[in-house]
């Protein structure tokens, strides 16, 4: 039997979301056809702002790629605009003549930017801000032009201004009123926002009415003229003064429209075969312009298309955020207050924080937060649910955490949130849904939570909260798995058992270890193979065969892979020291191989970024400096300060000590990366306090601290021991690291290793047991004996050099490459 036909006009956020919901409820009900005027699959329009600001790429914001349509049996006509609906014959007709009949029609045509009806609006370089084409045109303009003017100081205008500024243009925002974002902010918050944008270099023309746009001889805009006759230069003008629901198609088909295609609570238009949804629809007199309400509408509409017939859409309360990195701003409800309302205001202009809560009687009816928006989800929930807040009124301003025990940090707030509290406004995901997905599916990363729940996958402003919930659900440190957990799904055994078998059974190859331990997969996975490879090579340094194909790409290519498939190269600079000759060679290499970026790293050395894989070997050769192992689970850097050689406070020669440590330990692979630092006095300019091993010079010798970490969660290193000489530093540091190499779990930093086995245990093995210490140190030295530098001894390091040569083939004529 032929399935009924569903045609969707508008391949945007609302239309496609409806299809996603429909496919869950009734996957096979319809033959589905989608028309989209844009030549792209469905993408996340919200994220055009980060794309403009250079923070994300177009590829990254695609929501449903081409294969999604194919896999779901949906016919997509991308790049085809529907120009007519023939309701009598139940057909839509596209500009190119394509006709498709429908049993149900869904209009999701979005809005159009409103362009001021002034002279010059048709000049080149005058744009609205709506879609990929606009965004690309703006990005192109940033390369060729200098002056941009954004007309409209609302959400969209400010995001456009920020993006253009970040790309180097001189940007002026022209606003008709004297405060920005007047529909979302009160005057105080708007003032703080303006000051902060001014600090970023954006200019403002407030209370200004634009009269005309003036062009140059070539027909491109050249200036903006105000009604008082003054002019400012502009080679790009972005109009962001509002949107108009795109109803032209519906109107021409005789559907009732009134500032939007009018729909009822089931999203049905006046024609029962036709639904409308998203920004083009007018529900109870409101056409929404944000995604959260559209997604609610989509759920209801899908329910009716699936013939369940029970959903009702009753309208949405909306809240606003600005997506400008570094500016936190939130507003919802009636934030201006007025008669019959009370305001609670917290203002700290110095600290850049301003919060205003508006109450009517016992209810919170509005909120406007600037600078600290951590509690926005909670306020928004109180507001939407119209809850009685009289009992907590005194504490309301101090946030949800203040209701429990005082002194809780962010994690406490996440833990304290109620299960039905909404976390992600864009996708309507509440805390309970995240917690149960984490538990049920065993999720441990933000990316996984995004994929499973959609939380924080739209505008991203709730990312921090989602991470806190993840951390709270997993219990504290979500990096370190419990000790008894299997190494990965390929085996029942945990890390300890695998290490013991390799040691006790003298296993030297991955295949041997897998066979002995009864691995469940023929060749493991990307989780266990690198771990096995490390355990084998660290236990039997001169016998086990290192297997490059079981290493993560960075350790296989001996460079860090970048998001655009190039690599970065970080040569070693002992203790952060270098010379004119080295710098000259680096400069020459940068020129010769057209390396696009050079950066001083946080580890006191230089990073060459954007090197083509084919060039890596030549770059290493011409640099003629040792590998910095910036790509490896291995010794990274030993940071140093200038120390007693130059510094007026220095008590010890920290630079020399650092260089000695780095020369002794480089090429040392470990369960995870290892970073050291040596400071010449307790002022600690080399930041020894947050290193795996941190050494601090004092009058009478050296203090050694261990297990610090400056990364995901900062941990201060713990005092380990105090010694007198350079030799003792080398021996104690080496022995501690060898203990970590022998007993650490793969991907466990020293901070987690020491937390697991105990600092006292490490002291007993290294500080108190002199013979044991010497034995550990000797084993380390034995492991590092003859260890090759992969950049300059590729054969000895078993580097598979074929990887650097792609196999060329000519497609034009038939050639036999063999």
């Amino acid at each position, binding site marked *: 039997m032929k399935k009924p036909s569903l045609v969707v006009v508008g391949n945007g956020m609302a239309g496609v979301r409806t299809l996603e919901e429909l496919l869950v409820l009734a996957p096979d009900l319809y033959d589905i056809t989608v028309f989209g005027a844009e030549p792209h699959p469905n993408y996340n329009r919200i994220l055009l702002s980060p794309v403009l600001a250079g923070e994300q790429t177009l590829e990254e914001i695609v929501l449903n790629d081409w294969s999604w349509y194919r896999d779901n049996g949906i016919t997509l006509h991308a790049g085809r605009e529907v120009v007519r609906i023939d309701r009598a014959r139940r057909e839509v007709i596209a500009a190119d003549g394509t006709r498709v009949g429908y049993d149900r029609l869904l209009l999701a045509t979005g809005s159009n930017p409103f362009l001021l009806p002034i002279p010059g609006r048709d000049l080149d370089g005058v744009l609205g801000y709506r879609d990929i084409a606009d965004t690309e045109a703006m990005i192109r303009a940033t390369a060729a032009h200098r002056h941009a003017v954004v007309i409209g100081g609302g959400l969209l205008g400010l995001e456009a201004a920020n993006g253009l500024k970040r790309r180097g243009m001189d940007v002026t925002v022209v606003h008709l009123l004297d405060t920005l974002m007047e529909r979302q902010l009160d005057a105080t918050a708007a003032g703080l926002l303006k000051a902060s944008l001014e600090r970023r270099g954006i200019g403002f023309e407030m209370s200004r009415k634009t009269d005309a746009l003036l062009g140059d001889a070539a027909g491109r805009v050249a200036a903006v003229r105000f009604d008082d006759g003054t002019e400012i230069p502009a080679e790009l003008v972005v109009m962001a003064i509002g949107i108009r629901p795109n109803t032209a198609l519906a109107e021409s088909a005789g559907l009732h429209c009134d500032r939007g295609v009018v729909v009822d609570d089931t999203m049905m238009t006046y024609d029962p075969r036709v639904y409308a949804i998203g920004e083009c629809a007018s529900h109870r007199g409101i056409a929404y312009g944000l995604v959260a309400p559209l997604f609610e509408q989509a759920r209801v509409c899908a329910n009716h298309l699936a013939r369940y017939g029970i959903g009702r859409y009753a309208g949405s309360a909306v809240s606003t955020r600005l997506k400008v990195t570094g500016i936190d701003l939130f507003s919802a409800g009636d934030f201006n207050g007025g008669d019959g309302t009370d305001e609670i205001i917290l203002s700290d202009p110095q600290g850049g924080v301003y919060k205003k809560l508006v109450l009517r009687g016992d209810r919170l009816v509005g909120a406007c937060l600037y600078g600290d928006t951590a509690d926005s989800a909670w306020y928004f929930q109180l507001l939407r649910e119209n809850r009685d807040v009289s009992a907590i009124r005194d504490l309301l301003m101090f946030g949800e955490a203040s209701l429990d025990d005082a002194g809780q940090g962010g994690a406490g707030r996440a833990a304290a949130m109620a299960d039905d509290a909404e976390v992600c406004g864009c996708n309507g995901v509440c805390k309970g849904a995240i917690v149960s997905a984490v538990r049920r599916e065993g999720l441990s990363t933000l990316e996984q939570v995004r994929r499973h729940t959609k939380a924080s996958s739209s505008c991203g402003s709730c990312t921090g909260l989602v991470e806190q919930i993840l951390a709270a659900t997993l219990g504290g440190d979500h990096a370190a798995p419990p000790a008894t957990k299997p190494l990965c799904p390929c085996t029942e055994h945990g890390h300890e058992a695998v290490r013991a078998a390799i040691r006790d059974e003298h296993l030297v190859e991955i295949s041997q270890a897998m066979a002995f331990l009864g691995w469940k997969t023929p060749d493991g996975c990307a989780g266990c193979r690198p771990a096995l490879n490390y355990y084998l090579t660290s236990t039997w340094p001169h016998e086990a065969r290192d297997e490059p194909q079981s290493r993560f790409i960075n350790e296989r290519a001996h460079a860090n892979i970048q998001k655009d498939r190039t690599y970065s190269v970080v040569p070693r600079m002992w203790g952060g020291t270098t010379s004119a000759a080295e710098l000259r060679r680096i400069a020459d290499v940068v020129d010769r191989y057209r390396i696009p970026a050079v950066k001083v790293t946080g580890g006191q050395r230089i990073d060459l970024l954007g090197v083509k894989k084919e060039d890596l070997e030549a770059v290493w050769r011409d640099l003629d400096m040792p590998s910095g192992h910036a790509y490896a689970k291995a010794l990274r850097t030993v940071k140093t300060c200038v120390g007693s050689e130059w510094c007026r406070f220095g008590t010890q020669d920290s630079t020399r000590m650092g260089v000695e440590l780095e020369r002794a330990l480089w090429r040392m692979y470990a369960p995870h990366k290892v970073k050291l630092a040596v400071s010449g006095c307790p002022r600690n300019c080399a930041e020894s306090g947050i290193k795996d091993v941190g050494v601090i010079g004092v009058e009478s010798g050296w203090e050694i601290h261990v297990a610090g970490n400056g990364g995901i969660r900062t941990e201060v290193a713990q005092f380990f021991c105090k010694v007198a000489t350079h030799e003792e530093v080398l021996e104690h540091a080496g022995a501690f690291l060898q203990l970590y190499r022998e007993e650490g779990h793969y991907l466990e930093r020293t901070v987690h290793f020491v937390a697991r086995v105990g600092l006292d245990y490490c002291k007993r093995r290294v500080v108190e047991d002199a013979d044991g210490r010497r034995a550990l140190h000797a084993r380390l030295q034995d492991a590092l004996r003859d260890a090759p530098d992969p950049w300059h001894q590729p054969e000895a390091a078993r580097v598979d050099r074929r990887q650097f040569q792609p*196999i060329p*083939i000519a497609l034009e004529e038939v050639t036999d490459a063999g």
Partner: protein
Amino acid sequence: MPDDGWLAVCGRDEIPRLGARVVRPDGGEDIALFRSGDDHVFAVVDRCPHRGGPLSQGIVHGRSVTCPLHGWDIGLEDGQAAAPDVGCTRTLQVRELDGRIYLRRDELLAAAAPLARAGCA
């Protein structure tokens, strides 16, 4: 003898076991040639359906490769991402004769077309 449509690319042994080589057609999209632990060879467009990561640089296991950028597992036979991830990269037919690997010219040309970039056939 393979017919005209098949292009000889390289010897099987030029691909490391549990590893990959990149084939670069002139003017075309990179193709990743993988060799599994049991010596089967697979060809897929070298572009992860997630954010375009170079699959050739991933770790090969069983009939999958783990993308080096964010760890999606992509099937070498069908190009499909393993659940819960959703997406697919185009695969190409491979023929092996006397230890040499052949790919189809028409498929290499098709892989270079822009539409192939965001999905599979």
